[in-house]
């Protein structure tokens, strides 16, 4: 089944209107003194347990806003 996400501007819309922006992972690490290994770990490595996570989404086929929401990868649905 498809599902809907809650855009802060447009309200609940079909997921295919949105682009997945990945997990919310805090600020990018400071560039000064950042080793190559730390850089690759930050850009590519993820912890994806089967439990709700904070994510970024982009409403590309709607109002064009980037927003954060909490969604459960085990059910695909938003968690309020």
């Amino acid at each position, binding site marked *: *089944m*498809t*599902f809907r996400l809650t855009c802060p501007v447009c309200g609940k819309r079909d*997921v*295919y209107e949105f*682009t*997945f922006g990945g*997990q919310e992972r805090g600020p990018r690490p400071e560039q000064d003194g950042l080793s*190559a*290994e730390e850089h*690759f*770990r930050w850009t*590519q*490595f*993820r*912890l*994806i*347990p*089967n439990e709700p996570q904070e*994510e970024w989404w982009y409403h590309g086929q709607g109002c064009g806003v980037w927003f954060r929401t909490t*969604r459960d*990868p*085990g*059910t*695909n649905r938003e968690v309020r």
Partner: protein
Amino acid sequence: MSWLRPRRLWRPAPLERHYEFVIIGGGIHGLATAYYLARTHGIESVAVLESHYIGFGGSGRNTAIVRANQRTVENVRLYEEGLKLWPVLTDELDFNLMFFNCGTLNLGHSEAAMNGIRMLASTHNLVGVKSEVLDPQQCAEVIPGLDLSDRPAFPIHGGLYHPPGGIVRHDAVVWGLAKGASARGVHIHQGCEVQGIDTSDGRVTGVRTSLGSIGCDRLGIMAGGYGSAVAAMLGIELPIHPLTIQAMVTHPFKPFLHTAFSSGAYHVYANQTLKGEIATGAHMDPQVNYTNDATAYYLKHQAEALVELMPALRGVRFMRIWSGLADMTPDMAPIMEGELGYEGLYLDAGWGYFGFKSGPVAGKYMAQYMASGERPEILAPFRLGRFLENRYSGETAAVMKYGHWD
């Protein structure tokens, strides 16, 4: 009338408190590893833990195409050996895996794609794997009914014909491996969900499951698309996105498609099963998830793409749609690793689109890795550490741009 009584292919086994080797995941990779641990390495204490039923995950959800037409030499070598194992296993397991060596054809829809296809064919020929570049007319000889006109949005420029490829009955592989493993003393526990992994002094000591705690000396995470969730139980970060791929079948009809084909531009692969249905798929949902959700959105897209390539299919009905997980890595090559910070812990994951065709060969070498503790030379290119050294596999240089993770 004893011949009428159904015979079990694998025996129910008592759940022991401790096994030398525990494999998480009762799919093709896990069962093949257990099979080779028992068969080749003579290990008598092996358990396979499966949270649902064996073959529930990607092993029973793929579209059953097997091939060795990867982009890089190290990947082609691995998949080629995998391809040669189907007839061997059919014999060894005494179980018909229904390997149909029908060949595969990858269509190119631009001159850039054709250049990519020429590179693929050169790589395959370099390592002695049969592949050739076809022009549009030759493509239509292999796949009757292709629309060669300029009417499609992406007209056909040619293709890569790969005769060693084919299709294999995926359930038969699961059952055959379970039969072979069980006959050699492997305990297969279905409905046994792993809920945690125990460690002590940097060693793996066991797993906590829905059926109780089980001790082990060596543990293999071979849970397909769920591998990143299992690794997360130990806080192990991986460069893996678990995503659902959707697949579907039409109603069955007379055999007409004698070769499996795919198109990167249209995001379609299709083959006619031995039952006569067209099994097709390729679409991937963008958000990480561990569900098996299928959507009408891709059903519609798949129908449009198939009809565009093969107008005669207009009006054919889809009967079923399903989805399975693909664990995507940034370089489209797998991760087979035994150095994860815990002694005795092994990981076989990140197979993405390619988990089915690689199952037996991955199991063979993971068994060797786990039994000896030494990484087989053929697995050297698939270390986890390559992602921290910026030494990616060149697999993404194949024809398609896969998605946002590569």
